[in-house]
């Protein structure tokens, strides 16, 4: 605990910090993608004709927009936190904005296609949607994913705080490095 284990430029500390960011955004993206996939399951009994049921179509389109923006933001964050591991610098502001707009368009298109394309729909998909969207029914498979993901996210945040504390506070020892008889052993006491 009192010994100097880190390189002077803090390379290892920064790598750990970046690793935690990468894991955090990866986790958020995974949980959100799962939820988005289930929410957007196309249902046969909802009329998707734009003119016949205007309110349903508007609500679905809005949902697709919100989901595509969120997923683009999460994917962009994940990509940016991955770049340092590939020895590439973080993108500049303008590049980031352009990339984010591009990602939003891509995700929006994919989600709209997924929602409106006439894919075959199986009864189990309908059942999954019905169970998943009724959170109070005790039958929603999204809830365990959400809880477990939230637990891992809190763990990652606490890990980051611990790493920060080790880097800034615990590295500074109130004991002398030169051992004298009375203070011997304190400096190298703990792991």
């Amino acid at each position: 605990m009192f010994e100097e284990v880190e390189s002077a430029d803090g390379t290892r500390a920064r790598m750990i910090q970046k690793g935690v960011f990468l894991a955090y955004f990866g986790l958020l993206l995974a949980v959100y993608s799962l939820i988005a996939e289930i929410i957007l399951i196309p249902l046969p009994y909802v009329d998707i004709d734009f003119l016949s049921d205007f309110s349903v179509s508007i609500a679905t389109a809005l949902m697709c927009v919100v989901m595509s923006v969120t997923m683009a933001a999460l994917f962009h964050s994940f990509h940016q936190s991955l770049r340092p591991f590939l020895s590439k610098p973080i993108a500049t502001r303008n590049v980031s904005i352009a990339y984010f707009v591009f990602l939003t368009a891509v995700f929006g298109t994919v989600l709209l296609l997924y929602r409106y394309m006439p894919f075959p729909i199986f009864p189990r998909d309908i059942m999954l949607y019905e169970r998943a969207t009724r959170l109070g029914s005790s039958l929603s498979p999204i809830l365990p994913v959400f809880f477990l993901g939230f637990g891992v996210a809190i763990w990652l945040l606490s890990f980051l705080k611990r790493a920060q504390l080790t880097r800034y506070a615990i590295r500074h020892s109130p004991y002398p490095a030169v051992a004298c008889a009375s203070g011997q052993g304190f400096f190298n006491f703990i792991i």
Partner: protein
Amino acid sequence: MRAPYSLAWRIGPALVMMVAVPAILLSTWWAGFFKTLEMETHLNWSQWVFFSLLIAGLCWSARDFLIIQYYLLRLLRKLAFHHLGSVFEQLPPKSSRGLSTSLIDSPPTLVELQESHEQMIQIRDKFESIDKSGWKTCQLKALPQDLNERVVLVGDSLNTELKKAGSNPFRLWALPSETHKKLCEQSAYFFEVLCHYWEDGTYHGLPAGTKAAVAEGFQMCERFVAFQIVAYLNAVFMYLRYLIVCIVSAIFFLLLATSSYPYAKQNLMMNFAWTLVLIFSSIHLYSFLNFNRNEIIQAIRSDKGRPGGVNRLMISQFVVFGALPAVAFLASKFPSLGRLLFAWVGPIVKSLNL
């Protein structure tokens, strides 16, 4: 403590982790955790992946907690038999605020470093006021050197950081500050000077008045070093608190996840989660008791040697980590008891019109 952060390889704890985590995951897989009665979807796989991550994180945090509390207790025991052991009693009880694993304790703020700086000023003034005429060279050299420069160095750093803190809407903590680092360096220097003072007996031949003044100056140095050690212990306890947050949140969300869906082996999964709750509650209470009855922690908490009255912290910790999990466990196992215990919740919610 640095092992998880620095990825330092230590064969013992690493081996335990390498065996324990796969063993738990394999046995839970074999037992059918997260299997459902209906057809499996990718949601089941994702649940299993998150569960594995949570268990790995839980084991990692638990291992770190056990290792750190073991070494910290060793350090505290060693301190209890050190020259500085008696000095901790002279510290104000408020400095013991962060020395526990209670989650509601806050770490020291930047403003609180002012006290250490004032201690340094008093040390400087004390040694400057001593008449050093007729002293031998070795006696002069055994005193703390360049005290004025040291005081100015810490003071400048503190003033700069306090100015920054004034424009910051959030409260700034003392531990990551540059002033804290400088104070630690000064403490290390004073500790070294004190070692020579304790061992050499350089000032035996001086007149009684001067000798008393020198002794008083070194006692002030001892208090300063003890204060910095307490600040250091604060950082270690804060680290332990983050570990507890990791463990508690992991177990809590595991329990919620297990109870929120009718898995095929839900009863077994709930028993597994409750076992983890009871094991970690016991470990936490055991380590909390160990810290609580430690001589150094008790000495810091005491008001100039007098014990500090009813220990509210101990009661709250027993309620949160002992009574609450036990009651919740019993209520889940015996629903009639649960209804009896939590019957008052319904009327309160209704009366509050939430």
